């Protein structure tokens, strides 16, 4: 079975700056795939490379089984794309924009477009220039979805949408994936992505940190919090058996995002004489994202920096670190 997108060792430079560095991943068909990353991580560059806008410096890309460098037009016939700042013709009405786009796609575009306008509650005779940012985003989405594309690539699709429309839009993404279409989206809205994404990839400074099915990732990774009676003593040997994604320390308390936490290791840590208040939590996507994008810090090097990371990562456990954070802030003051 051909994957919807196949990206192999892709690199892209702008001048001396390497924006995408040796990225490899595969997007199966019929899933909602979320690409996460901070501003400037290379998400948009990667998306534009997949559509054939950027000539990549190394590697290979296939979208719907086609090479974007050789068949950019064929890809655009199969892929619905909404950029992060969709620029529609301001003098057109919403209906005219649909009519114009319909000329380049097979029959049936206008019927679907009309239905989407109805769902989004967009007046067909309104001029684009008179629309709000959110309404423009809805028009751009309608135009991208109206020809029933095999693959939908959305760069920050929900920015500007109100909560109700955002919810219904995200639910429609799930329906599309269930119907066999593939949705590839980049976003900063972690809680929204978490609700709809089947797969996630995290891009950080142009490098791919992880790509995995979301459920698998969440079930394989755990947030581990504990306090040490004597912080000068070494961590228990069981701790070394874990695959540590992220670790931080604030005073006596430790916070770690780990993989490979078996019930046996967990039991050993709970019963360890130097540890108390050992808590193991299933992480949410935001914690995973922060864990994978923050630098891994060795316990011996941990200090006040770790405490800020702690408070950011474990939002529901701020109380535990607030005293340390306060002491740090008073030191700074």
């Amino acid at each position, binding site marked *: 079975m051909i994957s919807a997108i196949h990206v192999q060792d892709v690199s892209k430079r*702008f*001048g001396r*700056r390497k924006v995408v560095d040796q990225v490899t991943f595969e997007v199966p068909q019929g899933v909602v795939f979320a690409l996460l990353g901070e501003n400037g991580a290379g998400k948009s560059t990667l998306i*534009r490379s997949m*559509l*054939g*806008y*950027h*000539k990549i410096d190394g590697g290979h890309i296939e979208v719907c089984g086609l090479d974007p460098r050789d068949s*950019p*037009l*064929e890809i*655009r*016939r199969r892929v619905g*794309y909404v*950029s992060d*700042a*969709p*620029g*529609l*013709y*301001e*003098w*057109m009405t919403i*209906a*005219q924009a*649909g*009519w*114009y*786009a*319909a*000329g*380049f*796609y097979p*029959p049936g*575009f*206008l*019927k679907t*477009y*009309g*239905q989407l*306008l*109805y769902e989004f509650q967009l007046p*067909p*005779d309104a001029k684009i220039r008179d629309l709000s940012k959110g309404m423009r985003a809805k028009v*751009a989405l309608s135009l991208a979805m109206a020809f029933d594309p095999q693959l939908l690539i959305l760069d920050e699709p929900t920015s500007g949408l109100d909560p109700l429309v955002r919810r219904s839009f995200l639910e429609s993404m799930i329906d599309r994936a269930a119907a066999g279409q593939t949705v590839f989206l980049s976003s900063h809205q972690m809680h929204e992505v978490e609700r709809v994404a089947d797969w996630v990839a995290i891009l950080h400074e142009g490098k791919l940190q992880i790509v995995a099915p979301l459920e698998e990732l969440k079930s394989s990774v755990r947030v581990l919090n504990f306090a040490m009676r004597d912080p000068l003593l070494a961590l228990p040997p069981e701790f070394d058996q874990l695959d540590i994604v992220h670790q931080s320390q604030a005073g006596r308390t430790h916070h770690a995002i780990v993989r490979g936490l078996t019930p046996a290791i967990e039991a050993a840590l709970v019963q360890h004489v130097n540890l108390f208040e050992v808590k193991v939590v299933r992480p949410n996507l935001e914690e995973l994202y922060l864990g994978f994008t923050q630098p891994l810090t060795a316990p011996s090097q941990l200090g006040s920096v770790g405490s800020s990371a702690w408070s950011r990562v474990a939002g529901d456990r701020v109380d535990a670190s607030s005293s340390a954070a306060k002491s740090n802030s008073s030191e700074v003051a």
Partner: protein
Amino acid sequence: MDTFPLQRSGQWYCLLWKDFMQVRSTLIAVAGGGLAMQLLLLVAERWFDDVQQATPLIAYIAPMLFAIGACGMLVGHERQSGSWEWSSSLPVSWRSALTSKLLITLAGGIVTCIVLAVIPVVLLLPGRLPIDKISLIVVSMSGMIIVALLEVVAYFFLASLLIRETLTALVIAGLGLSVAQVAITAMSLAIASNRLVRWGLTPDFASFFITFVSSLGILAIGMVAMLIAFHWRWTTGQRTVFQFRAHTPAAVASSTAYVYSTIESPASWRVLIKLASVSSLWLQLSAAALASLVFFKSWGIPLEFLVIPSGILGLSAFQGDQANQRYHFLADRGVAPWKLVLSRLGVASAWMLGLWCTMLYSPLAFAAARWMPTTMLCCLAFLVSALAAICFRKPVVAMTVATVAFIGALMVYVPAVHYGMERSRQLGLWLDYESLTKLAQLWSPLAMLVLLVVIFRAARRWIVYDGLHLPRYFLVAVILALALHIVGVFITLYALLPASPSIAP
């Protein structure tokens, strides 16, 4: 929701429709403005000798003006507004997109030419020239217009594809094409003219042949470069920037300049002047280069040509601010509109002043007698353009509107004032014709004052209230300035100057 108000059409129909709608207003403005000018020239024949002969010139120049405007709208404006990005994300090949744009530009140019050729061909030539000579003129003019139109399209498309600011692109393209045309033709004439005459061609035909071949050469180079640039731009999208250093979006550049200047010194004036200096630097440099063409006396460019660079400098004061929404950045920081306007006008005026000071010490001193009218004309062009740049969001529209308004106002003003002077001479006023002309010019500062006041008034609306109803401001200001000017002249002529029976005829 099973019905949709429109029926699906073919790809070519959609592309041509979209491109036509983009240039529709430019076509109406240029063809309508040209026609109005031709009609006014017919009327002006009463006071000026042989002005009707300028009507074929309008039919020749107007298609070029339309082509320049179309290039700005179809490439420059699409890129600036971001619609290029969406259009190129549709499954349209670059060949189809380019063909549609070229067809619309050329068809619009030809339609403009045909509309404006009606008056010279039907009304003027038949009485003076035999029909076979008219046919020859029409055929040769058509060939020249098509070659010139293609040249304009190639170079203006090329510049708009490479340079982000539409107006800057158009001015640089105009400058480059003029210099290339004149320089290459002059070189070719120097090299090949004598040889062709020796081969038996008449000097006139040799000169025509060399000019034509040079134009074809320039056209071929421009077309190839434009095709490469269009393919590159269409397949890489509007964001790819042809430059040597990292791309910095305009808003970021503005904010960086603002923050950087603020760190250096908190004085807002310094920040504003710095922003005004860098925001249209290339455009202002191009305008200055365009003005310097007047220095080359051998090219025979009249002093009045300085009106064009003056108008461009006026546009440069505020050009791009609306499209790039830079003013939002400043408005959000509570910058007083009058400060912004003063800094922008100040920098653009400094360029004007520099230009005039250079001219003063140039070989053009011979034209000192014409300084006053030309200066007045240039200042008016500068202010009309600056007001258009504030009032119209798209730089190309601002440029077209400023040109049409300025020329239209002149076409109303000149016959009106000459009619008044004719009447005053009949009444026996003691001033001669030239003195009356100078007296009429003294009212120009009043028109300038009106325009200046409206610029400051409009700026408040522009920066604080997001530019609502500004085109109305422009129209009212131009009509008011024109009316006050004419009324002022008439009052001087009829009320203030006493009649002298000794000089009266």
